[in-house]
């Protein structure tokens, strides 16, 4: 076995990372093509509010001290997701307004909770930037459960999600119940964001959803290939990033994002080379 994996906490981090590296880009493809790349950011900030709330409650009540803050984070995140869909209906002509509204609500609440608790320990820092040594066994099981739910959802709803992303009108015409599916999709996105934050951190979660897609969309042919390439790029970055993070003693979120940026640059360069070859 790799020396890297001889510790249990690293095994936990590695397993979680691989699952997250699969989940985030799959959902990311649908989010990016619907031009909602910033939704992941809004949801991650509302997740932070949930985590801060849990940490605060843990300080006050012994009951919450044992709870994994990830669950409270998920609850906030799913609530925020449903709220975004509602806000999009209120601001029909300014749909994107829903994102800054939820984002600032998330940050505002987080700051209040943090100040009420007179600041936090390193725990919060881990959630902000991601830390592979902070992944617990219970996190692995939680993420595994989310993995199963998301893969089943995307597998069985692939057609519907594809049509709704391409052209909502056509989707409605073919009799697809778009409202229900879009809300379920947002809720699932919220779960994945909460699941990913231990590895990449709240501030960087959205990068794991959008950067692999940004890279694959340049070079892929067709929608399925876009998904596969996004997953490939996501996994590559997560695995490489975690190795680098461990051996160079750097924050895992940062190294993963830097790996993603490198992949993205290569994909843009590759595309340029191919099109100039075609032209020449």
């Amino acid at each position, binding site marked *: 076995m790799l020396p890297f994996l001889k510790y249990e906490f690293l095994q936990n981090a590695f397993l979680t990372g691989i699952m997250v590296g699969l989940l985030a880009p799959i959902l990311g493809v649908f989010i990016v093509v619907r031009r909602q790349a910033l939704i992941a950011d809004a949801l991650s900030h509302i997740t932070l509010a949930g985590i801060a709330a849990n940490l605060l409650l843990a300080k006050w009540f012994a009951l919450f001290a044992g709870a994994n803050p990830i669950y409270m984070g998920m609850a906030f995140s799913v609530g925020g997701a449903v709220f975004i869909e509602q806000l999009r209906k209120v601001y029909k002509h300014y749909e994107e307004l829903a994102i800054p509204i939820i984002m600032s609500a998330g940050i505002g609440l987080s700051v209040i909770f943090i100040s009420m608790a007179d600041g936090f320990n390193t725990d919060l820092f881990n959630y902000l930037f991601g830390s592979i040594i902070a992944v617990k066994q219970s996190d692995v099981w939680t993420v595994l459960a989310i993995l199963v739910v998301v893969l089943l959802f995307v597998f069985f709803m692939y057609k519907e999600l594809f049509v709704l992303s391409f052209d909502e009108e056509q989707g409605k015409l073919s009799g697809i119940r778009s409202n229900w599916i879009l809300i379920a999709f947002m809720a699932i996105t919220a779960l994945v964001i909460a699941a990913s934050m231990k590895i990449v951190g709240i501030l960087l979660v959205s990068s794991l959803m959008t950067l692999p897609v940004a890279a694959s969309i340049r070079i892929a042919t067709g929608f399925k*290939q876009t998904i596969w390439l996004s997953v490939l790029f996501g996994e590559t970055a997560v695995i490489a990033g975690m190795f680098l993070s461990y051996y160079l003693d750097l924050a895992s979120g940062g190294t993963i994002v830097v790996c993603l940026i490198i992949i993205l640059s290569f994909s843009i360069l590759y595309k340029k080379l191919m099109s100039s070859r075609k032209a020449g």
Partner: protein
Amino acid sequence: MEKKLNNPAIFVDDLSFHYGEKNVLEHVTMEVKQGSFLGLVGPNGSGKSTLIKCILGLLKPQQGSVSLFGEKVQKFHQWDKVGYVSQKANSFNTAFPATAFEVVSMGLFGKVGLFRFLKSSDKEKVWSALKAVNMKDFASRNIGELSGGQQQRIFIARALVSEPELLILDEPTVGVDVESSESFYKMLKDLHREKKMTLVLVTHDVGVMTNYVTDVACLNKQIHFHGNTKEFEESSSENMSAFYGHHVHVIHHDHDHK
């Protein structure tokens, strides 16, 4: 079954629609018989697209009703009988990463149903729809790489793939070069004649249209003319000038070399 055949494909009954204070459609009554080819004409902003969206149940009129094949649109469920090609520019992200084949296969999703996948017979249908619009060779290209005319053909194929009985096209030749729009009209004529499809073509291109359609409806908030092509041509110059507000000659483009 016989009763069904007698039902018009589309029946619009005293329909009015307004966006806020602005009246878009006033007391529109219109019938499209099964097997006919209707040209719906009118100047820009005359409410053509709004009427189509009401017909498809995408917009809810404040007054009046729409029936498709004899059934009220709110209760209509056989959407695989209806194909719709919208004005391309409004509803389409040209950078969307999907191949032409994938886009056409979307037209089958309503028929296939929830939790199910495309079978190989479905894929055959996609191929024959691509063949019908002469785009077979482009099946594996990304939709964004195709020209405007080619993209439009792909959207027609998407509407055709579920073998609809009624096909509605909203200004399908906008942004398409003259040559491809001509072969496009010919394709519609073939669909109408050979497949006995009911067609509704929304356009502001009056001259070209009259060579192909069987019926004409002129819309400018209200229906100003509704009848067959012959009646339309006989009355057209007076109709048109009243309608567009100035004198219009209907020019026939007879490139059809019959």
